[in-house]
């Protein structure tokens, strides 16, 4: 079989799975299931990165988004309240949310198509991105964004500590420690 055909089949297959999973994220009636469908979408994105030969991005995506961000979400859900079974999370803002989502989708699609439409990259062989190259680029051309990321992380962490420590007097009511 032609390698390009295989790649095409995988691309559309993964894409379909991602779209279905993304739809289920917002339609499912259980928050933990929603988080799991989100994992499906993110894993699909990682698979697409692999198809684009962006290995480092793919596995960093799995490591950070699947392995950390959604785990944080699951933690948040399990620590507060994540009942098994169905629950109704809808409220009166549903139509508004749909409009916002549709507009966002339109704008993002338009930007991406406008910016990259018709651009073709030859990825095979010599042009295949290596992790070394990514490192060299991050630490030479993108020094400032990289360093600013650490400030962002600092701010996020301090914010988390501030919010988390507020309910200290109630500590004796807690269980499980």
């Amino acid at each position: 079989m032609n390698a390009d055909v295989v790649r095409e089949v995988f691309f559309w297959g993964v894409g379909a799975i991602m779209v279905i999973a993304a739809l289920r994220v917002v339609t499912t009636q259980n928050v933990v299931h929603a988080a799991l469908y989100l994992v499906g979408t993110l894993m699909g994105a990682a698979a697409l990165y692999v198809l684009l030969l962006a290995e480092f991005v793919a596995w960093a995506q799995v490591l950070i988004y699947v392995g950390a961000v959604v785990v944080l979400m699951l933690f948040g859900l399990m620590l507060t309240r994540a009942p098994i079974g169905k629950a109704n999370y809808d409220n009166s803002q549903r139509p508004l949310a749909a409009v916002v989502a549709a507009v966002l989708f339109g704008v993002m699609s338009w930007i991406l198509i406008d910016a990259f439409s018709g651009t073709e990259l030859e990825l095979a062989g010599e042009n295949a991105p290596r992790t070394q190259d990514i490192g060299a680029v991050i630490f030479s051309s993108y020094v400032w964004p990289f360093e600013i990321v650490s400030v962002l992380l600092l701010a996020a962490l301090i914010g988390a500590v501030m919010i988390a420590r507020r309910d200290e007097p109630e500590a004796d009511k807690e269980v499980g420690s």
Partner: protein
Amino acid sequence: MTLPAYLPILILLVLSTGFAVFSLWMASKISPRRWTPAKLAPYECGITPEDGEEVGRERFPVKFYLVAMLFIVFDIETAFMYPWAVAYDELKLFGLIEMGVFIGILLAAYVYVWKRGALEWAE
């Protein structure tokens, strides 16, 4: 060159998932099934679970959430370190200083979290 390298991983993924699912399916077919309400009740060391008591309503220490938050920060740091370490021979001293600044800022966060007692688990 990379895509063929993922073929074995794909096969392994399919094979191991298939194996696990098949084992569970087969077990559900060949094993006896004599369910009783007592057997299916949540295990609480013999104490009868109270009706209507929802599982997961207890409050956990918020520290668990903080740990997950800290984990994300350090996970991102780790993810940045891999390309840095691979490209270290090219980056040389400049790379060392850059990573030093990056880690330095994160260490400030780490020290802050430490001093605020978020890493203390013994009350």
